[in-house]
């Protein structure tokens, strides 16, 4: 049973905000999560309760685990990169050092790590780059070559911390307005990279449109595409069925899978991108 193994390590705990820094359009929020850090892998996410006791917001918010540290000054820490979007994420971005937040973590699937050294291309859109730096470290430690492409609409939506850059072999940045890096989209260089044979596996995280475009390009090749999808989630733990996405199995049957427990990391080639938001 996938479900019961996936969230086996999940716990609901109160944690302390160690720091909250603005980085471009985002907030980098560091949480003191102790032992739980041992079970957090790149790709997993946390579900955070937002607002105080009297809040009108009844649902948790999902955020990718950007990085974890096992032996920081405070024991295990977990970092989030949060875009102030609506009322819940804005509330979270307002929580300063010392604030307590309630989290359920770690949740969902993690990026699969190749058993043999491979050539990995990591593609991130907006805050989608957050989990990729932690992933890059793991891949490097397994002897993989790690190239990274990041994109966003504009420069302050590129999240690329200096420490993170160290763990990749190459980094290309694209913006749609050309304010940083190359004018264009992350998918622009993809066909030629694949054609050159320098990519064995693509790891992607970002807007659904981006993931879909990458899948379309990767489809005609042998390249494996692991993408972290993002659907609206009410519970994050598999009990509400709101977060589903159409996925085809080996026998050709399309099912609506819960992206909170059978994702967020999914095989891009199985996702039926053109059916997202339609009746199956």
């Amino acid at each position: 049973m996938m479900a019961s193994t996936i969230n086996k390590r999940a716990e609901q705990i109160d944690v302390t905000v160690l720091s909250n820094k603005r980085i471009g359009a985002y907030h980098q929020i560091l949480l003191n999560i102790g032992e739980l850090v041992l079970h957090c892998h790149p790709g997993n996410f946390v579900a955070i309760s937002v607002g105080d006791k009297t809040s009108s917001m009844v649902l948790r918010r999902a955020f990718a685990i950007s990085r974890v540290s096992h032996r920081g000054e405070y024991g295990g820490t977990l970092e989030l990169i949060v875009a102030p979007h609506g009322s819940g994420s804005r509330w979270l971005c307002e929580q300063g050092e010392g604030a307590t937040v309630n989290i359920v973590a770690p949740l969902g699937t993690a990026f699969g790590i190749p058993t043999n050294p491979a050539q990995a291309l990591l593609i991130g859109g907006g805050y989608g780059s957050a989990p990729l730096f932690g992933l890059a470290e793991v891949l490097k430690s397994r002897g993989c070559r790690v190239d990274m492409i990041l994109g966003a609409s504009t420069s302050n939506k590129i999240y690329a911390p200096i420490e993170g850059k160290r763990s990749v072999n190459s980094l290309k940045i694209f913006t749609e307005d050309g304010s940083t890096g190359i004018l264009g989209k992350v998918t622009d260089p993809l066909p030629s990279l694949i054609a050159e044979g320098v990519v064995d596996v693509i790891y992607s995280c970002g807007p659904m449109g981006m993931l879909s475009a990458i899948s379309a390009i990767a489809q005609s090749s042998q390249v494996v595409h692991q993408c972290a999808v993002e659907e609206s989630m009410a519970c994050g733990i598999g009990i509400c069925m709101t977060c589903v996405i159409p996925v085809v199995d080996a026998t050709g049957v399309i099912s609506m899978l819960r992206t909170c427990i059978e994702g967020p990391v999914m095989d891009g080639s199985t996702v039926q991108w053109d059916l997202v938001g339609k009746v199956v």
Partner: protein
Amino acid sequence: MMTDDIDLSASFGSAWFPWPVFTASGCASSGKELAQFFPLREIGAVVTKSISIKARSGRPTPRMAETPSGMLNSIGLQGPGIDSFLENDIPWLVAQNTRIIVSISGETVDEFSVLARRLRSVRGICAVEVNISCPNVENRGLVFACDPEASRSVIEGVRRTLGGDLPIIAKLSPDVTDIVHIARGVVDAGADGLSLINTLLGMVINTDTLRPHLAGKTGGLSGPAIRPVAVRAVYQVHAALPEVPIVGMGGVRSGRDAFEMILAGASAVAVGTASFGNPRALLDIQNELKSLLKEKGFSSLKEAVGFAHRVDRTQREVKG
């Protein structure tokens, strides 16, 4: 009247539950996912998501919208179909040693009976919840629970098919002019208990895209926002049918909320949306409810069921 332990049990027909807090249908999937957060045997019962005859893939996404103190959902009864359900989900639940209430939903009166027939001989099921808050394809998609005749027919059919054994709990919709009328009908038709309430029909327009936020346009409103409507429904139905046990639900998030439902007339309480915000909500609520009952001097939960009606009566008599 303070005792260290207190009888929290509830009965629906021949089914007995040691604890009064149940999962709300559709808010605990098949049970496995919540089992990660507490042992299922420690709550009253797992009410499964409503199961249909055939597998259903449900509605497209977005399927949810958060609303003030509530949420809308539009799942469209996604599920594996009764066969797969009985083969995979039930044995697992039975192994957990929890009480199981299977929720069924059909598109025609007949489909409900077909589902009931499949359940008749399944071991480990305590009761059947009949979710009649779904569209009747034989009557212009009018929700069964909004139509007194259709509601009765569904329950009659299920009762006939099940024989006298398995208790039936009919789950009603609040989107009706007279919920007491519907309740009377299904009880006459053979329901042993009632689940009150299902979600309210609601809608959110996305002011960025300028269109309905949910792919299915309308959705079901749940959560604390609807609690006053749920409490009113439970109170009205208990006043009219004091002998019929009720599973009260709609916005229960704390022991206080559960206690409110009990005082209004519920014999047990189900928790839906609250689990999304707090995976341990069911146990927390059950423990808080127990403390509250003791604190207020009740020696059993049954003593508190519908107490708000009785306090009321006494005071009126005193007033003259």
